[in-house]
């Protein structure tokens, strides 16, 4: 089990290695600077020992001056190499993270849309931001320097041994208790910190939820109760913190005390070997400083280990995202400039599930053709498969059986980008981006500013723009909250019009709009539908009846098709549907007679 996870870690490092290996120069620099820095960390105490025991004890003024200057130089070098190694590592790491973020983003653009149905948005966002940050912390906190810390520790021990083997052995009597204590407290501190994170997440979630619903809390008079509930969460948080603080403080204090005890051990050793002059002042000072230089990396080891651990966890999640299979290459296959004949769904079986059972199938052997220039309405109950048809046409999904054909060619053989560029889609929920109104219409590279302006004018958005403080340069707030549903829909229509697409797809584009706004939208829609191939899913009869052909769907199959007039005349599902709507939507006769109760 353990070996397996080690191997997994190793594979992960290998995959991430690409990002560091791409900068060989910087990597080599960081690789050389760290040992140099370790060397500079080891030297000063040795120089102090020489100064005390050789220069001062021998009353050698000249040597004192020379060695003091050497001491200063080494100290400054220690800081300079420390800076250079840390900074070069930061550059290496940050550039690697830049490339990683770029790759994740590009990868996410290529994932099938089904991925987003499955995964909550927040989770993917965390992979792209917080998890990369956790990985970057390896470089910014120098956690990756654990190896060079070990080098420093080895160097310190080597120097101590060089000065005095017995003394070193004596001083290191304290190392086993140090390691034990550190291991013990760190385990508890880590648990405590984990529990803090959990509690703070609960507090954040509570605040996010209740602050945004404060009106409900107030209307229902639950201020006091929710405050008590919140206090309970905070008390748990406080308790978790107290544990962590205690373990952290105790660890810090114990490590400090053990360091002092190590000095006491030196003295005791000296006391027993007083005659031989074994412990000279310089040796003692050097040892005190070495012990300190030994303890600092040992103490930091745990913090760095924690950073590494969370980085490994983050890397695993990031690689998990990168392992998600992309939908299809965007730029491979037959080139397609325009649609000549039309689209066809041939014996299409489709289910959203990855390994569908019979019950999962939304479309069951659907055959449907759409000729160029024809305008088609899809009608049917929720779950009849209307929206699914739309998503198969511009290849958001591939059918499990059967095929979608464009001009007689399987859509899977056509370059995905070319295929999707034939379409413009307008949905019920309009997606607006941060930026100005104009930028939102000119949302992709294919729409230039002139086309966007013309489209805004053509859909009749002028009155709306005139009302805005800065016209087309007005900034759109997050989620377009400074625009009404109707205004957002108007922008979406302008966006579609600016694209001047071969095929227009409307997915319940006018469902959420009140009657007043609909008048304006309707004019824009008529303009958009003129001389165009279109597929429309709509609820409003006024939209449906204008289409060339109406396809009534039920349970993933076609029930009826024909023009409005034909279907009304023929009778059946469509006419029933229209009639049911009339009775359901209009006040029944009892209300007219004026007897409400």
């Amino acid at each position, binding site marked *: 089990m353990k070996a397996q996870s080690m191997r997994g870690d190793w594979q992960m490092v290998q995959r991430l290695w690409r990002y560091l290996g791409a900068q060989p120069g910087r990597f080599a620099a960081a690789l050389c600077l760290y040992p140099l820095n370790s060397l500079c960390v080891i030297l000063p105490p040795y120089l102090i020992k020489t100064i005390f025991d050789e220069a*001062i004890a021998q009353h050698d003024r000249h040597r004192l001056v020379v060695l003091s200057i050497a001491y200063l130089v080494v100290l400054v070098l220690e800081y300079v190499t420390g800076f250079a190694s840390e900074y070069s590592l930061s550059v290496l790491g940050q550039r690697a993270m830049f490339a990683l973020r770029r790759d994740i983003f590009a990868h996410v653009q290529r994932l099938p849309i089904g991925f987003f149905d499955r995964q909550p948005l927040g989770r993917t966002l965390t992979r792209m931001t917080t998890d990369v940050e956790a990985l970057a912390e390896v470089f910014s906190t120098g956690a990756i320097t654990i190896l060079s810390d070990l080098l420093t520790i080895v160097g310190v021990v080597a120097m101590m041994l060089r000065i005095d083997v017995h003394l070193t052995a004596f001083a290191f009597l304290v190392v086993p208790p140090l390691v034990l204590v550190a291991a013990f407290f760190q385990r508890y501190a880590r648990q405590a910190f984990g529990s803090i994170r959990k509690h703070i997440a609960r507090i954040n979630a509570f605040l996010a939820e209740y602050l*945004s619903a404060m009106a409900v809390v107030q209307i229902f008079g639950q201020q006091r109760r929710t405050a008590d509930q919140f206090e309970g969460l905070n008390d748990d948080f406080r308790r978790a913190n107290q544990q962590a603080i205690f373990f952290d403080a105790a660890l810090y204090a114990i490590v400090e005390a053990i360091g002092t005890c190590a000095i006491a051990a030196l003295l005791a050793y*000296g006391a027993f070997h007083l005659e031989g002059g074994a412990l000279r002042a310089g040796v003692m000072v050097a040892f005190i400083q070495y012990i300190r230089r030994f303890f600092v990396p040992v103490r930091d080891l745990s913090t760095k280990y924690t950073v590494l651990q969370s980085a490994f966890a983050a890397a695993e999640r990031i690689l998990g995202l990168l392992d998600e299979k992309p939908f299809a290459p965007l730029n491979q296959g037959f080139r397609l400039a325009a649609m000549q004949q039309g689209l066809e769904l041939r014996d299409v079986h489709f289910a959203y599930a990855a390994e569908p059972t019979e019950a999962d199938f939304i479309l069951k052997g659907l055959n449907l053709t759409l000729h160029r220039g024809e305008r088609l309405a899809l009608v049917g109950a929720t779950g009849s498969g209307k929206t699914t048809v739309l998503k198969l046409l511009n290849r958001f999904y591939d059918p499990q059986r059967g095929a979608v054909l464009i001009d007689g060619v399987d859509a899977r053989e056509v370059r995905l980008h070319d295929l999707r560029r034939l379409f413009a889609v307008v949905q019920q929920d309009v997606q607006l981006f941060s930026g100005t109104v104009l930028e939102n219409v000119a949302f992709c590279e294919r729409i230039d500013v002139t086309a966007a302006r013309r489209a805004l004018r053509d859909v009749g958005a002028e009155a709306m723009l005139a009302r805005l403080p800065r016209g087309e340069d007005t900034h759109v707030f997050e989620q377009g909250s400074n625009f009404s549903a109707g205004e957002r829909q108007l922008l979406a229509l302008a966006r579609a019009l600016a694209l001047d697409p071969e095929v227009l797809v409307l997915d319940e584009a006018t469902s959420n709009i009140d009657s007043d706004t609909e008048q304006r939208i309707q004019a824009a829609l008529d303009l958009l539908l003129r001389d165009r191939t279109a597929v429309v899913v709509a609820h409003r009869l006024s939209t449906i009846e204008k289409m060339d052909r109406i396809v009534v769907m039920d349970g993933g199959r076609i029930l009826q098709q024909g023009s409005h007039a034909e279907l009304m005349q023929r009778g059946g599902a469509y006419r029933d549907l229209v009639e049911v709507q009339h009775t359901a939507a209009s006040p029944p006769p009892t209300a007219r007679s004026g007897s409400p109760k």
Partner: protein
Amino acid sequence: MRLLLTHVRRRLPRFGWGIFMLLLTNLTSMAIPQLIRMAVDLFHNAERDPDSPAATARLLARLPWPLRASLEAMASLPLSPLLRVALALCIVALLGMLFRTASRVHLLFAARDVEVDIRCSMYRHLTDLDPHFYAQHTTGDLLSRATNDLTQVRLMLGPGLLNLFNTVVAYAMALPLMVWMSPKLTLVAFATYPPALALMRHLGKRLYVANRTQQQALGQLTAQAQENLRGAFLVRAFAAESSQEKRFSAVNARYLNDSLVQAWIRSGMFRLSMSLAAFGTMATVLWGGMDVMEGRLSLGDVVAIIEYMALLSWPTFALGWVMSLWQRGTASLARIEEILASQPLAAPPPLALPEALPASLSVVGLSVRYADSFALQGVSFEVPEGTTVGIVGAIGSGKTTLFMALLRMVERSAGQIAYGGMAIDDFGLQPLRRRFGLVPQNPTLFSDTIANNIAFGAPESSPEAIAAAAAAAALEDDLRVLPQGLQTQVGERGVALSGGQKQRCAIARALLLDPPILLLDDALSAVDVATEARILTYLQQRRAGRTTLIVAHRLSAVQHANQILVFEQGRIVQRGSPAELLAAEGFYATLAAQQQSTAAEVSP
């Protein structure tokens, strides 16, 4: 600042103990160089004059009084002087460990306590503020003040205060000891500290700015990624992958650049100052060495002074950090105080009222103003007890505002509202709101069980009552399908309910209260026609003789009302029974005609 003082005062004993322990900790730290000094000189003497009692006595005499007394007290132990020093060192280390743990625990606990206290009082205060306040502050902003800003305040009080006091105490103790041993060396040792500190402070400010810029860039990066994920469908539909990548690349590059600037200052700042300070260390060794050769100082004196410098190096350079903690902490504190200083618009004036008032409403000349435009203007109507009023009108015509005004969630700019003949201003806010049950337009469910969500306004309700309310809201069929029925978790970590299910939960929540007046704000928009009919039938049966106000877009929801009010741009433009309005020309008749010819929802 006053806020902080109030809360600190509550935890004063903790802070006091912490600071007292900090004093003791520093006392033990100060003893260590003196003991090392003693030991070094003992060794030195031993080399020349092994174990001379006279020399030992002379060395002892140089120690500060408490240490001398302690070592003399140990004289009876059968130990050599050096071993006695070693033992003393161990005792000091042990005491230091206890004091150090205690000081950190007390001070950091106290800071956490203050953090938690402020956060709880913030939430309590926030529950009193009205929608006017919430319109001006986004949830994200408030959340950030209650967490990030509070963290800054806590850091200022915890590590900030700890290190500040530690520095002051350490200097106050170490400087006299150093001067006492050698004024000249003390001066030499600290010669380069002022420029080093000035540099530290300067770079500290730049680091603060660099950190902020970097955080802003990270914020932009996150926002961009979030937007892209939210628009995943659109990006694909418009084949806009490459323009999205380009956009992201720009913020990604900015973040890289800001990170590198930050890394440059962060890696350089501390080390540059330390390099300056290194001159002092070197000078101490050099001059100290000279003095030892000339017999003015003992070897132990020089070692002790070097040790004191090592002891002071962290407290000194932590000052830069403390300063920035203080800066950020006070800025954050101001942002928190701003929230706590916000007052709710209406101070509830309590007035003794009879419990049993008729559930009737009388609205006269009601106007509500938002910023520069009227949401309601001169609205007057009467609702006799036990009647049902339907309210229709286009989006933005003031229907929701009317409900908010009834509940005193918004302030009126003119007009009077009376409940059961009493002005609603004479009720306290809570007693007034308890008389209403609102089903809002966008129902809010909390991350909790469905049962607790339904019982939100009446947490003490029996399970039977909750089940009955759920049944009344036509939730039974849905509950049967859900894994744990009423006990199913919804929201963030639970099941995602459909819009219609959420609406029906909100209806159940209001019905459970059995309120004198029920307010339905377009509460049936997301349920299908058949379910709507079921709920309406229930309401007609069970709330017969009770007062109900229904806002609706589908006329089927208001067809049984006694009275219909048609709103347009904040005014009532038509009123009458459904039959009267159907016969007359206007919004209602037009809407009825439209809804007849429109397939408003396709559900066979």
